[in-house]
């Protein structure tokens, strides 16, 4: 299955007004403490870092640990004074990487 993410945020926020961004990425977040039915330890496989940048500048970042649930979800508030491009990135174990871009048109 292709990696997927779901991001919700207003497409046309007002300049300077706070708006909420919610982001989820598909990832099992295997803790390394679970065993398969045959009794073998399922190896740790986690998303480690999430970043949101507006035109390259860091808005919000999170270092994520095994205690974050599967399909890691974060939400935060930001504001923008002009339109721009939001870039979301997730990085994790075993070379995991996923990127999403959203354009915001500030009114």
């Amino acid at each position: 299955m292709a990696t997927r993410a779901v991001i919700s945020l207003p497409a046309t926020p007002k300049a300077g007004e706070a708006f909420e961004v919610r982001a989820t990425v598909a990832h099992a977040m295997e803790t390394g403490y679970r065993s398969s039915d045959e009794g073998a330890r399922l190896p740790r496989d986690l998303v480690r870092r999430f970043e949101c940048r507006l035109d390259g500048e860091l808005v919000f970042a999170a270092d994520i640990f095994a205690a974050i649930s599967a399909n890691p979800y974060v939400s935060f508030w930001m504001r923008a004074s002009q339109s721009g491009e939001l870039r979301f990135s997730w990085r994790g174990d075993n070379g995991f990487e996923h990127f999403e871009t959203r354009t915001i048109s500030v009114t």
Partner: protein
Amino acid sequence: MRALLLLLVALAARAAEPDLRRSGRDTMSSALRTLQADDAQHPAQLALALGRELWGQGGKSCASCHGEPEKLRGAATRYPAWLNGEGGGIVDLPGRIQRCRVRHQQQPAWAPEAEPLLALTALVAQQSRGLPLAPPRSPELDAAARQGQQLYTTRLGALNLSCAQCHDERAGLRLGGSLIPQGHVDDYPVYRLEWQSLGSLQRRLRGCLSGVRAQVPAWDSAELLAFEAYLARRSAGMPMQPPGVRP
């Protein structure tokens, strides 16, 4: 209590009778109710996004016959169904989707609980949000529902418990730390936190049967479909809100 509940189910159509049935939604904590009600936070969002993607994919996509998913509003309320013809029989919604895939899309069937199957099940079920469960009738479905009701009220497994003992007689009490729900089937498929994934009613039933240390019936077996036929009638008339969230 059990007799009363069954009587009320049978008389659900009568406006004068109070309906004592309560969805598992109403007996969850408010945090979980919020997770289910808020589309932006719902843990099944990813599955729904996948479902929408799959809906339009391929030469003979779902969309090529059905149009937009919204056209299937009401379809998910009418399961399990009886399908005539060769390869017919009782099917639940995932079974119907598999049948479409094999017969009309000429693709191999998915494994039970496969991610794309659950994604499409969630997408189709979601189109019937707010509509009352309306399982159809037929001689075959009636027989299956009778068998299902018998299974429901029979002590099973090494723990020797019947479904009715918990979900009819003791709904509202606690087992361990968990509140016992009435066990309605209004929100399937559900994202069960215990599973950390979406799952079908058959998965839930197999889990319960394993929980009482009974022999777990095979996927799509006559017993599981009989359970589904009975449970749909037991919950008939209750509004659906799929996909659900449950602890």
